[in-house]
């Protein structure tokens, strides 16, 4: 089998999004925050549209709305004006400022502008956190992780009562609101005081409300972030981010022990997560989760024959791909191609580590892929399943195979924000999805009309 990735100069149907989108989403998970793009108007509008179509929630991303003359003379004045207007209209507690390709290219010194703003503008000002997010360098995931790291660098401390300290910090990366709600439930059940950063569970999946909130309630409380330095430990999901992640910064600055684990997807990875929680809390895994795990194993057994040996292509963000691949491998599905638009250089190794004892042969693993490349490889690989977000649908349709929708964006179905990926419960839902997709395919391909499969 050729393991050479297709190598084209042009990109067709990218399998990644741009850096500031990730940053904006991360900022949305902070209490009282408004994401702000320092750049021209179009980027913010495009990203809002893209995000809204997944979450079905309002997301206001402010922009400096730079025009031609600002591009020539620098965007400092517009940045300050914009910050002033956002402050006045939204009364945010925090403004999360991400740059765009434009302002990075013209070399705007946002740090300097912010120092000037601090001096020039009177009155109460929200906290400003800034992150540099040129899209010609990285994907939305770099944007996401770097924004989280910026928040930690700017706001984390050892505030609060030393005695009450000893919570756990969880940095889950880009997961769904449903995932975050579940993580909260788990830590609550362990009686662990947890700071989950960021937390989009309420801000990007809010209930129907009486009035329109300018800033949706929820998000990681600023006061919790301020005391992250007191934590007894941090758990960070994912292995492909840089060495300057939020968890690493907390360790460096405050000596909070940081463990990086793969996204807890499937039984093995979830076990590791629960082991850490057991260790940190000193309590055994609550009954409830042993029950979940038990039912999950039971269902693995019940359903294994429908899916054994099915060949799957997995695509999306690198850490999600690692998590999904590990999960698929443990239920007997054969990942044959793992692809991402990201380029951490670590994807293949992480997949090998997660699946070495499960797979007779490692899948092809390629970074920097787009859907043209994936499509081209798919032709000869003959997959039975695609696993990833909505943008794989055209390929699934072309190959007449099911698409298991996970991750972001889900633009062609309801409820992307409610997809649960993590832990035993997430694995249960994914397992049912995968098995049922295979059953439905078999049922649909047959002319008999079986009502019993």
């Amino acid at each position, binding site marked *: 089998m050729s393991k050479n990735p297709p190598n084209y*100069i*042009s*990109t*067709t*149907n*990218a399998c990644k*999004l*741009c*850096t500031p989108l990730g940053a904006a989403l991360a900022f949305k998970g902070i*209490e009282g925050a408004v994401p702000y793009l320092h750049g*021209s*108007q*179009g*980027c913010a*509008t*495009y*990203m*809002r*549209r893209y995000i*809204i*179509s997944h979450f*079905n*929630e309002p997301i*206001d*991303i*402010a*922009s*400096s*709305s730079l*025009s*031609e003359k600002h*591009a020539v003379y620098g965007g400092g004045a517009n*940045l300050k004006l*914009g910050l002033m*207007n956002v402050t006045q209209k939204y009364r945010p507690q925090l403004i999360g400022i991400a740059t765009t*390709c*434009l302002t990075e*290219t013209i070399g705007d010194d946002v740090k300097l502008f912010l120092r000037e703003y601090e001096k020039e503008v009177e009155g109460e000002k929200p906290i400003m956190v800034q992150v540099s997010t*040129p*899209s*010609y*360098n990285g*994907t939305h995931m770099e944007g996401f992780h770097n924004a989280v790291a910026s928040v930690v660098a700017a706001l984390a401390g050892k505030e609060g009562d030393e005695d009450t300290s000893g919570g756990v910090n969880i940095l889950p990366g880009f997961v769904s609101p449903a995932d975050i709600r579940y993580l*909260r439930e788990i830590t609550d059940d362990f009686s662990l005081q947890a700071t989950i950063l960021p*937390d989009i569970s*309420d801000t990007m999946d*809010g*209930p*129907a409300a*009486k*009035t*329109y909130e300018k800033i949706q*309630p*929820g*998000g*990681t*409380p600023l*006061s*919790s972030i301020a005391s992250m330095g007191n934590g007894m430990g941090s758990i960070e999901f994912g292995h492909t981010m840089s060495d300057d992640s939020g968890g690493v910064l907390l360790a460096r600055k405050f000596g909070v022990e940081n463990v990086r684990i793969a996204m807890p997807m499937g039984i093995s990875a979830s076990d590791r997560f629960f082991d850490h929680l057991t260790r940190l809390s000193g309590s055994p895994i609550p009954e409830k989760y042993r029950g979940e795990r038990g039912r999950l194993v039971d269902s693995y057994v019940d359903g294994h024959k429908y899916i054994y040996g099915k060949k799957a292509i997995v695509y999306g963000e690198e850490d999600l791909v690692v998590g999904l691949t590990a999960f698929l491998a443990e239920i007997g599905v054969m990942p044959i191609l793992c692809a991402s638009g990201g380029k951490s250089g670590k994807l293949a190794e992480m997949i090998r580590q997660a699946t070495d004892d499960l797979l007779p042969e490692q899948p092809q693993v390629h970074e920097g892929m787009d859907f043209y490349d994936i499509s081209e490889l798919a032709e000869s690989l003959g997959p039975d399943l695609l696993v990833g977000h909505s943008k794989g649908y*055209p390929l699934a349709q072309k190959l007449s195979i099911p698409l298991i929708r996970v991750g972001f964006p889900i633009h062609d179905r309801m409820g992307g924000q409610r997809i649960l990926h993590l832990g035993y419960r997430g694995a249960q839902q994914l397992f049912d999805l995968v098995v049922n997709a295979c059953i439905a395919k078999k049922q649909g391909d047959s002319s008999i009309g079986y009502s019993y499969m």
Partner: protein
Amino acid sequence: MELLKEREEQIHRTGEQPFTLSCNKDSLAGAVSQRACVFCGSRVVLYPIADALHLVHGPIGCAVYTWDIRGALSSGPELHRLSFSTDLQEIDVIFGGEKKLRSALLELIERHSPKAAFVYSTCIVGIIGDDMEAVCRQVEKETGIPVIPVKSEGFMGNKRAGYTAACNAMARLIGTGETTGISPYSINILGDFNLAGEIWLIREYFERMGVEVVANITGDGRVADIQRAHGAALNVVQCSGSTMDLARMMEDEYGVPSIRVSYFGVEDMAQALYDVANHFNDPEMLERTRQLVKEELQELLPKLEFYKKALKGKKAAIYVGGSFKAFSLVKAFRLLGMVVVMVGSQTGTEQEYQELAEITDPGTIIVDDTNPLELTSFLEEKEVDIFVGGVKERPIAYKLGVGFCDHNHERKEMLAGFVGMLNFAEEVYSSVMSPVWRFTCQKEKGREKMCSIAVANPKE
């Protein structure tokens, strides 16, 4: 609501004299404008040309957010549905992206054999100073197909500037094709993008009238048709902004006159067909047109009755890209017996807003380039039943317990033409009449407490 002071002059209430509304201003920094950028405008207009290659020269985001998001259908090739990008990297930003652009173009043209290529510049291309013009000229020479740069750096203005850039790009194609054999009763359809197959419907109407359609500009568009578009006798232009420039240019250069029409709503649709027939001044054609309208109305009007009865007196708010569409929507709601309480657009002109003020009831809010906070306050103030807008407005409406109808480029429902009016009524009806609203916090009586929900991380 307290408005941002700078925004005051972009909002007007009908009946509050005198009328002034400033528009076509740059969006205000820090206000969350619903507007997009120049690139977006160009992309909207050119994108439906289905046998052309559309290459976005820039970093990945600009291309990926516009991948197949519009419902512009093609009856043949579907090259337009792919999202091509040069995906500029740091090294390209430092040393320039010309080489990469050139190689990407050659690679893609060889792979897909398009009839022409459009190359869109994005913001940073304007800054790093790539000579797109030169690269395009060179590749055009090597490949023998038109390779046309579209100057669409996002920061050069708003969507309107993008329309102009797109028209300039198409102007380079027009006039290069053979025009023999074109009927004297011939038109180009400008400004329809074949969402949900609408242009097929409109073409069929014209064909029933005995009018030849030379080029679709640009819904289900083809390069070769556009190249011979100057051979048509008339340009029929829909929508205020997007293709007006092209019509003007064709009038100057080739003497092709143009008329402006709208295909939304019964009145405007019929008017459009009559205007074309009247232009050709052919009694038989006029008769055929009358017949066509009569048949269509006979079919449609009885079916509309049901919806009129149900929707009478319901309140509608409109916020769309171009104000010309806003006019048609105002009329369409009238036909349904509904009341329009707010109307606005991203890119209207002062005159258009003035005309809107004239046809709307006193107290109607008229607004240019609004933002989520303003929209929210308008919807709350006017107790709107249905909001017509684009995807970005949808969650705002829903959060406020207001029905919604997508009238933008992403929609998959045919809303133009006579049958479009029925679809429109149906869509409005299915949102307004849904029983789900009774549970939203705005309407729920007696269980208000259920609407206060603690968040996971309550503020201290």
